């Protein structure tokens, strides 16, 4: 997947809006493979890389559980803590929306706002995905990686 700068800012704006309306602490978009796409809010004290990987693992395991009992998936997961809570939901097929919120918000409000913003967010992510697919099939020359050399790679290892 390729995330271009303009898409990144668009997506960030969308989740920033959602964060404000839902009174959430942190909102993060993570792909199903555990890669963080964008994050807004009080994220600096959190290990977002680990959070992205664990959120993806959590969703993947829960999806498998759903299929075991004959469901297609469980579209929403909610973990309630003493202070902070975690709301995970799918946007489209490929992306997980992670909302972390505390007593300044409520599950009802988060659910409502996520539902409201999900279609717009889903559409933006789908456009991004299509763009990424198109670039892969046709315009590879524009990528900075088509001509990386063995020396470039070796330089990473100090050789």
């Amino acid at each position, binding site marked *: 997947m390729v995330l271009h*700068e303009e898409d*990144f*800012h668009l997506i960030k704006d969308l989740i920033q809006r959602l964060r404000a309306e839902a009174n959430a602490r942190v909102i993060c978009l993570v792909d199903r*493979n555990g*890669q963080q796409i964008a994050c807004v809010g009080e994220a600096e004290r959190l290990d977002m890389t680990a959070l992205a990987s664990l959120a993806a693992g959590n969703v993947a395991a829960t999806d498998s559980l759903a299929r075991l009992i004959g469901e297609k998936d469980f579209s929403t997961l909610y973990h309630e803590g003493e202070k902070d809570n975690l709301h995970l939901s799918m946007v489209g097929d490929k992306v997980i929306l992670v909302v972390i919120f505390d007593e300044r918000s409520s599950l009802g409000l988060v659910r409502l706002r996520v539902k409201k913003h999900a279609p717009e967010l889903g559409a933006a992510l789908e456009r991004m995905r299509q763009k990424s697919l198109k670039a892969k099939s046709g315009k590879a020359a524009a990528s*900075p990686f088509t001509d990386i050399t063995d020396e470039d*790679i070796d330089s*990473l*290892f100090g050789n």
Partner: protein
Amino acid sequence: MTFINYAAREINCKIVYYGPGLGGKTTNLKWIYGKSNPTSRGKLISLATETDRTLFFDFLPLDLGTIRGFKTRFHLYTVPGQVFYDASRKLILKGVDGVVFVADSQSARMEANVESLKNLRSNLRDQGYDLARVPYVLQLNKRDMATAVPVEEMKRQLVMRDEAVFEAVAQNGTGVFDTLKAIARMVLGELRKTA
């Protein structure tokens, strides 16, 4: 699937360490964690049982440096090796960019190696990958054990294609970084074709 983030100027790649139970996959990651610069590594996450067996996965994010102005970040995962955790293994292979197979050199584990390799091939296929094409490296671990099968014999039974083969003793780090470098090199080499 390699994730290229132009906004953060980052390339993220996923490498999975696969192999039979108690073969040394987690030990590989622990060694890498222990020897990496704290500024270039993230937290090592282990989802393990009470007896320290991998239950779901281990995860270690690692920055290798910059290439063409892009930070290269590798996400290293292990799978649970025990046979009955197959559903979890399948999930972890999702979006994989490169696979390291950690084989256990002890003669009593040869059958488990072969079984696990078969399992890898089939689980990759389920995720839409072909073991013959995905970046892949074979590590023969536990070379220091008294019952270690000769390298040539292990290769005869486990080599699947033209993969690089590394002898290792993950406990003391032998071969661990050579294996990692080889797979990282292959994964980055793939960017030329797929970027």
